[in-house]
């Protein structure tokens, strides 16, 4: 039996009403490569950020190398030889690679009061040499480096702690094939030297391939920890999404049901930066059209591009099915009874410091404008109150700032303010992301009701079960292209969809 490196017992972490980590127990041996698997919102990132000292836990205990481990910040974690490459933290682009690697610790290179760039550069180079990571130019600002090179800088920063435990959060998805190999070699070396790794990857095949063992999380709890030998991708998916369908959580019918008439017609939609290539789709009356794909397949840009907001230039045709009008700006779509919900609710959806009322008002600004451009505050209050009541938002009143409401309540506001309008179709990008099970069930029931009323719903989702549970048809995207279209029925299984996705 190998020695124990890290032992986590009954660890808990909550954000408001969301229980992000619920009684997590986990044991990691020296020399073990562990992957964490689970859907979005299953608590993987919360767990790793607690281990790496980026946030504290509520209760429970961690033991590292036989001693109590409760890092107050990442520096303390580094001192205990735990380091992490964080998915979204990134580098400071104005500073050079070596400065980024030693940020906050530059004093060790002080000669006569100055930080010796040469000594720092040498030390940085040495990390790259020691761990055989592909070299990147370290002497120029990171603004001039590619995304992949920047990731290498971040990796070097973590490796500088000479870690016994290295945590990699979604590092491979931004890397090319060759660089991925380097990571795999690094992993082998860690194993040999009796060091451990915790890896999070969306690539399920990779997860099974490279790990010794896999811990599967679901809704903030550990489902199971399994050995990877003899374990297949299909087994993994079963465990990840094997949620019991409770009550009328999802649809129970097994056949598609929608009307002939087309509400939204998209032809040859492409983005200049290649995120989308010639996508055509039709959304019918009363249809829920699911869109699935891996994280870089282009499912999220598809939603915002149809809506009319994209970073790179859009080509192709988006037409309203009823009026036949071309839709170029979100305003055109709003005029035709369309709407869109971004995946990034807090950044691209809500105004966090503003009252619920003002958030509710935002999508209905045109409708509430009367003669002489007059908008009646009383009418705004009425609209906000209606959405507030209809969607059962839990707050003191419509005048409370959104601020620290729970994710579920925020999402109710975000969705409710659109659905309170008379809509023809709605584009939803991950509408149940980061909400608890109760609100999730509520949102599904609302969507089913809207479907019955004849609203067309384009449901973009990271969760296959959600698409399978709700959609009439599913479009699968791969590398920005339409890879398959599957109708509700016998072919509507995860394995069928994943086969196309990967």
């Amino acid at each position, binding site marked *: 039996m190998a020695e124990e490196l890290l032992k986590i017992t009954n660890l808990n972490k909550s954000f408001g009403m969301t229980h992000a980590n619920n009684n997590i127990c986990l044991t990691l041996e020296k020399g073990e490569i562990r992957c964490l698997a689970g859907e979005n919102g299953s608590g993987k990132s919360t767990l790793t950020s607690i281990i790496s000292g*980026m946030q504290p836990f509520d209760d429970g205990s961690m033991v590292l190398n036989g001693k109590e481990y409760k890092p107050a*910040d*990442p*520096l303390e974690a580094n001192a205990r030889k735990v380091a992490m490459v964080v998915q979204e*933290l*990134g*580098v*400071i*682009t*104005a*500073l050079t690679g070596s*400065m980024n690697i030693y*940020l*906050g*610790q*530059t*004093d060790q290179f*002080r000669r006569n*009061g*100055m*930080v010796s*760039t040469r000594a720092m550069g040498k030390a940085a180079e040495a990390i790259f040499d020691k761990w055989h990571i592909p070299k990147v*130019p370290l002497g*120029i*600002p990171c*603004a*001039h480096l590619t995304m992949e090179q920047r990731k290498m800088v971040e990796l070097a920063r973590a490796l500088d702690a000479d870690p016994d435990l290295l945590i990699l959060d979604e590092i491979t998805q931004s890397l090319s094939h060759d660089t991925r190999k380097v990571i795999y070699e690094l992993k082998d070396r860690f194993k040999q030297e009796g060091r451990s790794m915790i890896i999070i990857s969306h690539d399920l095949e990779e997860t099974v391939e490279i790990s010794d063992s896999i811990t599967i999380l679901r809704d903030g709890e550990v489902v199971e920890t399994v050995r990877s030998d003899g374990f297949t991708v299909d087994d993994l998916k079963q465990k990840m999404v094997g949620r019991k369908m409770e009550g009328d959580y999802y649809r129970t019918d097994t056949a598609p049901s929608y009307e002939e008439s087309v509400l939204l017609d998209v032809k040859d939609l492409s983005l200049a930066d290649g995120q989308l290539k010639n996508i055509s789709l039709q959304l019918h009356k009363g249809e829920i059209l699911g869109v699935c794909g891996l994280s870089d397949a282009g499912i999220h840009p598809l939603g915002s591009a149809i809506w009319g907001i994209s*970073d790179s230039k859009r080509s192709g045709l988006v037409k309203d099915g009823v009026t036949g009008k071309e839709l170029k700006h979100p305003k055109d779509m709003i005029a035709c009874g369309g709407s869109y919900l971004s995946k990034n609710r807090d950044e691209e959806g809500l105004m966090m410091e503003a009252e619920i009322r003002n958030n509710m008002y935002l999508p209905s600004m045109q409708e509430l404008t009367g003669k002489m451009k007059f908008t009646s505050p009383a009418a705004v209050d009425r609209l906000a109150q209606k959405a507030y009541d209809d969607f059962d938002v839990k707050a003191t009143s419509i005048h409370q700032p959104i601020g620290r409401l729970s994710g579920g309540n925020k999402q109710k506001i975000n969705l409710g303010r659109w659905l309170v309008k008379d809509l023809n179709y709605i584009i939803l990008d991950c509408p149940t992301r980061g909400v608890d099970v109760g609100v999730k069930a509520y949102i599904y029931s609302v969507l089913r009701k809207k479907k019955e009323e004849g609203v067309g719903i384009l449901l973009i989702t990271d969760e296959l079960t959600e698409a399978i549970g709700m959609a009439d048809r599913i479009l699968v995207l791969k590398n920005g292209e339409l890879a398959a279209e599957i109708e509700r029925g016998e072919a509507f299984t995860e394995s069928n969809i994943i086969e196309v996705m990967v």
Partner: protein
Amino acid sequence: MTKQQKSQVIFLAVFAAVLVICHLASKGIVLSGSNIVNVMLHAVFPMFAAWGMMFIFTGGLMDLSVGANLLLAGNVGALLANMGLGYAGLIIGAVVTAVLATQFTAHCAITFDIPAWVAGLGGALILEAILAQWANVMAASSNTLPALKNYRGLGKTPGAFILMAVGFVVAFLIFNKTSLGINLQAVGANPTVSKTMGINVRKTIILSTIIGGVFIGISGVNDISLAGKLSAITGLNSLGTISKALSATLLANSLINIFTKPVGIVISSVIVALLFNVLTIFGVPSGTWQNVCLGLLIILCGVLSHLNEKGVVK
């Protein structure tokens, strides 16, 4: 050759080409020795003020009181110099005054949570008033604000150029080669990452504003050495004193991907000084169309450097 070096070469080549064209068009005046000295002499003041602003602004403190600050600092320096303390009095008086003044606004912003922009406004009002009050008191006793008669070496050759060289070395080293400078850049770019990496954000900002104050003080010394006498300005018009320095700062910001800031400030200050110089040579009236050209130049640089901007711009 790295991408950055390529951009540097291209930029300098274009800059040189424009200069040569101006030189030829002016029938050999622009690049003549005496004219170059003249241009550089005028670049020293905005350069120092801009270096000072660099240390203050980079951490996120948009403090517009620097104009009033440097006027006051210059006068205090002159007072001490005239009291028989000479150059030592001039420099120490100005620097100490400027550092104290920057600490006032910095603490208003950081310790008392007053938005930096407002703290700068309030600071400017108060500093201007101190100077004006002093001028009033002096006038009542039939005196005026101290004029600098004897110790004006730092406003002309070679003193000004020695000052500039020393200033550049110090600004460059502190900004790029010390932990403080590196931390400051990190704090300005991304406070979250900085905190995660264990940088003390508050300490970094306070120390940087102290260094910024030193540069502001020196710019006051240079200004009064050049002018001989600095008058009191009220009604927040001290902003006008630093309009060239602010322009240089903004230009340096738009060159950030080509040159590191201290270098960018040298180049931008020279560009601003050159712009006025060349326009004067071509007979463009000063005070009017020359300033319009400066405004257009700033907007042009702003547009060029934000061509690929995707985020939210305030």
